[in-house]
């Protein structure tokens, strides 16, 4: 018997964020970013666990949240009092996007209502064939000429060609889980450690860098690896955490 985990599906990262905000009854202008980020990441974890297809947009938003969280944790630089207002709240841009999205989501709800109302109105079925018998046109082709016929045929052929040319490119799915496994395999081969830049040297997409970073955070959190950095902005070195038994244990989400 398969056990099915029910997880609400969201239209996108903003939809998920709005849901979390509503669920926690939070003031949208004053989002407790640490709490929301945690809940957001939890959702992604669970979604990945039950194999829900999430687009990279969700991962990008996770990074935005982490970046806001980081900026809010950083001590405010001591600035001499200037004329300028105190620095901008890092959440402002996100709040703006959420508010705008929320507005359209509500409008979509109104459309849903109109759609239901209209579905109860039925239009008269008109049978043009019957009308044709009653009002036979003087000329069954109207003002069409054979040129129109050729044009129409050409258009169809062009469409066929276009359809044939459209190759569906499968999006490379990079999950945090996969990345974690990949990092652990690399580290087993390199007990001397590996640098972050080495880890992402062959990576081409922004998404994959982000996923790599998330995987590292996850591994640090579960104490499977530890990081070292010689100085500020220097390359980050990644090492496997030595286990007491001197052997590695299987990674698991918890």
């Amino acid at each position: 018997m398969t056990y099915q985990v029910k997880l609400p599906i969201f239209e996108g990262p903003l939809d998920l964020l709005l849901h979390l905000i509503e669920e926690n009854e939070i003031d949208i202008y004053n989002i407790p970013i640490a709490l929301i980020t945690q809940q957001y990441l939890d959702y992604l974890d669970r979604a990945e666990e039950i194999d829900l297809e999430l687009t990279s947009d969700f991962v990008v938003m996770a990074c935005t949240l982490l970046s806001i969280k980081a900026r809010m944790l950083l001590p405010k630089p001591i600035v001499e009092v200037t004329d300028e207002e105190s620095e901008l709240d890092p959440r402002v841009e996100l709040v703006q996007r959420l508010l705008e999205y929320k507005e359209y989501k509500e409008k979509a709800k109104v459309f849903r209502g109109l759609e239901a109302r209209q579905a109860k109105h039925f239009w008269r079925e008109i049978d043009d064939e019957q009308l044709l018998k009653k009002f036979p046109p003087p000329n069954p082709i109207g003002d069409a000429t054979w040129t129109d016929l050729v044009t129409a045929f050409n258009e169809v052929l062009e469409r066929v060609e276009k359809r044939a040319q459209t190759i569906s490119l499968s999006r490379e799915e990079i999950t945090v889980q996969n990345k974690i496994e990949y990092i652990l395999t690399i580290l087993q081969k390199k007990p001397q450690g590996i640098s972050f830049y080495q880890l992402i040297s062959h990576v081409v997409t922004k998404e994959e860098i982000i996923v790599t970073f998330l995987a590292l955070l996850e591994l640090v959190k579960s104490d499977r690896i530890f990081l070292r950095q010689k100085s500020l902005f220097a390359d980050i070195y990644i090492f496997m955490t030595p286990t007491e038994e001197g052997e590695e244990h299987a990674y698991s989400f918890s």
Partner: protein
Amino acid sequence: MPTLFPDETKSIIEALLFVTNEPLTVKTMAEIIECPEYNIKVLLKEIKADCERERKGFCLKEVAGGYSFVTRPEYAPYIEKLVKPRLNTLTQAALETLAIIAYRQPVTKSEIDEIRGVNSDSAINTLLGRSLIEEVGRKEGPGRPILYGTTQNFLKYFGLKDLQELPEMI
């Protein structure tokens, strides 16, 4: 369905007659409304009388064992002015379908659908109704689907002597 007042039943009959262009039998209406056929018959008489008395633009007509709303014959000149332009011109879908049949005949509906990428049922019906295409046989194979080809009428209206005259495709 809840119990209905006669007036309400009458309105429902009107709604049913309005929405479809097929003649409706008393039996069908009685089944849908869940009421005796006798009641339907009485109400149909009333509807007919109402249309006459109020000189509506449409009247109730008994045709082919059923009932149907039809427009008053004396308004035909006005209706003609409204529908002629619509009936006269071939839609893009009909034109495309006709072009495929002309160049690929004999051809089946599913082959046409395949080429156009959409269902061509209504376009084929239009073309049949205008006698621009016709059934020219059946294809061998499962289901023995109908094969379509163009008619003499098609050649006549496009001013072609025969199919060889069809402009060659680029």
